[in-house]
């Protein structure tokens, strides 16, 4: 019962925040809405016994990825979204599309899972760090190692893309001639 209540509370928060993400025109508001979505999803993960994932969801998604988004919005001083003709058409089509899409998705998902609810789980099934680790470092060893390569490539790519093009004169640094930090 408590779980059901909490599911509805956090589910509602998540959907409301997601709608707000679409409704807001300033990207910083959208980013904050997305953080709320992620936090409530973390709570939902907890409801389903994925405690480790819930923590990671907060640390990585809300605490790191969204920080990057917020930084970029601050960095580019991205103002409110402009209204263009395209966006109005999209708005008109958008809301029916949500309903349609959500309906069809839900139907597909549920149709493939005809059983309503599994037996009560109690506290038995928990994605504790130990359990996850045992899977991760035994069964999923190769994907784990591959992620390091993925991250390596991401680091290099991001640095190359984000670095400003080398300027010649102008902004070049007027370093003092002789003495530098020792």
């Amino acid at each position, binding site marked *: 019962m408590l779980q059901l209540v909490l599911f509805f509370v956090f589910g509602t928060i998540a959907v409301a925040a997601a709608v707000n993400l679409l409704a807001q025109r300033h990207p910083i508001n959208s980013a904050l809405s997305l953080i709320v979505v992620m936090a409530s999803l973390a709570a939902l993960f907890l409801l389903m016994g994925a405690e480790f994932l819930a923590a990671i969801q907060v640390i990585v998604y809300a605490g790191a*990825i969204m920080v990057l988004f917020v930084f970029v919005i601050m960095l580019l001083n991205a103002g409110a979204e402009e209204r263009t003709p395209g966006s109005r058409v999209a708005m008109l089509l958008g809301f029916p599309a949500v309903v349609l899409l959500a309906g069809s998705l839900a139907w597909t998902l549920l149709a493939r899972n005809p059983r309503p609810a599994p037996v009560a789980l109690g506290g038995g099934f928990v994605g504790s760090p130990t*359990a996850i680790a045992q899977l991760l470092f035994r069964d999923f060893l190769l994907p784990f190692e591959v992620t390091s390569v993925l991250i390596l490539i991401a680091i290099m790519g991001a640095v190359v893309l984000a670095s400003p093009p080398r300027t010649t004169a102008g902004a070049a640094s007027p370093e003092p001639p002789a003495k530098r930090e020792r």
Partner: protein
Amino acid sequence: MVPISYYLVLSAILFSLGVVGFLIKRNLITLFMSIELMLNAVNLAFVAFAWQWKSLNGQVFVFFVMVVAAAEAAVGLAIIIAVFRTRETLNVDRVNLLKL
């Protein structure tokens, strides 16, 4: 207990909101956020299935999805910065040429 179908419907709603956001928003950064929203919706479905089948594999998948999302965000936002540097705008309607 919460039936699994509730989670799946929630996941579907969030996913379609992400899709719609991707279609209607015109700001590059918000587009990216819509993608993150879709990824999150998928994660929710993964966890829900993991819960249903009592198999942690689903949770491990989510773990990897997060790593990919992190890398994707880093590179994607770097691209946005690069685009912004030359175009001075984040509106997708004005960034419709592939050349930088």
